């Protein structure tokens, strides 16, 4: 049976089966996860030659390595002999990998180095079987992306306008670079991956779901998404979307985007002013982006999320704190804020996770069949750069996500 995506995905509603159907999930793996550009990590996680970390692209077990000459590779964690897992540890340092089953050994670029008792193969160097490599690897602002399709749009084409949001994150560092070195937390949610993605730029829920957190902490985040907010939700194209909070931040003092003031991070502010002159004001006022990069990289100002589907109703959300190279004063605060909001006992992600899982259980009910995504459709407009925008709490981002999703699921298979 072929699924008619144009029937399931309509401009103002999407069908519940998109979150529960095994066949649709299997097709998503082929048409999205093993085809388009998926974010797997950041170059700072393998800072030194020989460093490696294990990553996932859907069910694919991938090793990210840095070779002696500095090149970052994405290798598949599968021995070329009989398919055993080559690496077991989540991270380590080794210039070579030796499979534990029969000892076949590879360089960390994937090339075969040797095998035991070589007479069985007619001698040394007779086999040139290497580890599998992800066909296309590219980086942007240090984020490492993988595409399992040999051809297709370049990473730059894929990112489109979302690239500018990653630039906006990087420019907050006095050295123009972010680092993801604080370690990752893995949050497992019994929910379809799209529920997470849609939630990331849903400005409608914060006041509701996170209301208790905001009231306890006196946070101003809630008002950024209220009906009076001048912030906008923007469909950046390509399935990417953002909550652009800058219109609100511009009414505030520098560093208020971070819930702090200049006085509390004096070294950082001084460094940025010395570096950027007048332009520093804009950077310190506008702060970090809140952007969902299709299909799995979410930057929530101070935290970075990488979403990985496990099953139709199970997703792992990997979370870490943004660290700004050359800004130790900021990094301590970024880490503690990140832990407070999305850490093991963090308040924001706990709320959201509860909603993802309830949502997954809810959508299995047979009627009313549809999920509504029409909020704000009537007041959507086009901004000066040609992007569709809605109010801070409109579902403009979701509509953008679904139209791109539909084009991938319906288009020619690769």
């Amino acid at each position: 049976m072929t699924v008619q995506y144009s029937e399931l995905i309509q401009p103002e509603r999407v069908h519940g089966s998109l979150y529960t159907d095994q066949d649709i999930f299997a097709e998503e793996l082929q048409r999205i996860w093993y085809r388009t550009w998926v974010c797997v990590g950041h170059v700072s996680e393998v800072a030194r030659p020989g460093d490696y970390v294990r990553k996932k692209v859907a069910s694919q077990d991938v090793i990210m390595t840095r070779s002696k000459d500095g090149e970052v590779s994405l290798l598949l964690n599968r021995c070329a002999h009989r398919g055993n897992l080559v690496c077991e540890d989540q991270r380590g340092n080794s210039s070579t990998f030796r499979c534990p089953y029969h000892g076949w050994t590879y360089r960390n670029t994937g090339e075969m180095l040797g095998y035991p008792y070589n007479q069985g193969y007619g001698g040394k160097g007779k086999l040139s079987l290497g580890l599998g490599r992800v066909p296309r690897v590219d980086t942007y602002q240090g984020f490492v992306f993988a595409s399992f399709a040999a051809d297709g749009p370049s990473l730059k084409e894929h990112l489109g306008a979302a690239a500018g949001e990653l630039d906006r994150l990087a420019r907050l560092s006095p050295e123009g670079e972010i680092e993801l070195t604080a370690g990752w937390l893995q949050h497992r949610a019994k929910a379809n991956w799209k529920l997470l993605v849609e939630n990331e730029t849903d400005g409608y829920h914060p006041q509701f779901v996170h209301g208790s957190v905001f009231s306890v902490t006196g946070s101003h985040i809630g008002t950024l998404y209220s009906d009076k907010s001048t912030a906008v939700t923007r469909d950046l194209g390509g399935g990417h979307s953002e909550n652009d909070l800058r219109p609100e931040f511009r009414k505030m003092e520098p560093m208020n985007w971070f819930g702090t003031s200049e006085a509390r991070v004096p070294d950082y502010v001084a460094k940025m002013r010395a570096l950027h002159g007048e332009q520093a004001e804009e950077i310190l006022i506008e702060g970090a982006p809140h952007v969902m990069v299709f299909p799995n990289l979410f930057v929530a100002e101070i935290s970075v999320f990488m979403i990985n589907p496990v099953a139709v109703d199970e997703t792992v959300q990997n979370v870490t704190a943004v660290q700004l190279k050359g800004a130790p004063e900021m990094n301590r605060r970024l880490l503690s804020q990140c832990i407070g909001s999305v850490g093991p006992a963090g308040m924001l992600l706990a709320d959201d996770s509860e909603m993802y899982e309830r949502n997954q259980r809810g959508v299995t009910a047979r009627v009313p069949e549809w999920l509504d995504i029409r909020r704000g459709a009537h007041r959507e407009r086009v901004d000066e750069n040609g992007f569709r925008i809605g109010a801070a709490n409109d579902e403009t981002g979701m509509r953008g996500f679904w139209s791109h999703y539909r084009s991938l699921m319906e288009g020619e298979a690769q």
Partner: protein
Amino acid sequence: MNQWIIASEFAEVAVSLDLDANGPRLRLEDLRSGHVRHLDALELESIAWAPDERLRELIDPSAGRWSDRADDADGA
């Protein structure tokens, strides 16, 4: 950093445990030139097991540092 110096009249090398990377490495520093090399566990195991003749090959002055080929200079 805990370091040991292994020295003879011919060479002086500082040996220490480096924990800056994603896993531990042995750091070797040739104190006469400042040249540094790191060795990971699998490399060390391989050295421990290398036949003497392979080690002798490494010590041959023309094998690395004084090789005629400039690109061999880091001994890689």
